[in-house]
């Protein structure tokens, strides 16, 4: 199942500079495991030790914030586009 993952500037050190990479997985969590198998280290930037999404990383499935869908357990389909953006936040 081919999913396109769009990678933000700050995580492109894991993808040899690529803005988008292909991956596969039945859920977002599976996709992150798959991406980590070729781009080692990227998964821990996206999810915490319990597998939940990091608080200050936004992940979108097509046009939706996955927090409003199923979080890391959001199911994926062939042709989906997953966009990752670091949250812009501070104090």
């Amino acid at each position: 199942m081919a999913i396109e993952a769009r990678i933000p500037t700050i995580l492109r050190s894991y993808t040899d500079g690529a803005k988008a990479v292909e991956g596969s997985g039945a859920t977002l969590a599976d996709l992150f495991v798959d991406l980590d198998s070729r781009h080692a280290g990227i998964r821990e930037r996206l999810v915490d030790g319990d597998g939940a999404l990091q608080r200050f990383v936004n992940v979108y499935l097509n046009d939706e914030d996955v927090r409003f869908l199923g979080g890391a357990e959001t199911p994926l389909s062939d042709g989906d586009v997953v966009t990752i953006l670091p949250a812009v936040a501070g104090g």
Partner: protein
Amino acid sequence: MLKISEELRDQIVAHARRDHPDEACGVLAGPVGTGRPERFIPMLNAARSPTFYEFDSMEQLRVWREMDDRDEEPVVIYHSHTATEAHPSRTDIKLASEPGAHYVLVSTRDPDETEFRSFRIVDGEVEEEPVLIEDDVLGDRH
């Protein structure tokens, strides 16, 4: 060094004053690779807080896609401090995630005088940089 037009500087300050005592935040977009801020994009502070700011995630997706379509990038990311100096807080440094951006801090703690400063934040390291206000950017090219 951050070069910025007087008009963009004034728009940031006006936004910060308008949202005081909550923190205001936003982006100046510019053509990729030029480092030149050109387009003022005020963002909602989803936290609506005097001590914290966070872009609304859906608005951020829309704005980031629009920049992509226009071959732009976030040249400046700005926010205000409403009771403290215009310097990145520990939280600002920890969460900074655009190593290529100028982080502009505005302080509205004084009702009459606005502090306006710019920083680079890369890998947890903060470096202040000079700000050059250009009152006639186009005129400089003649």
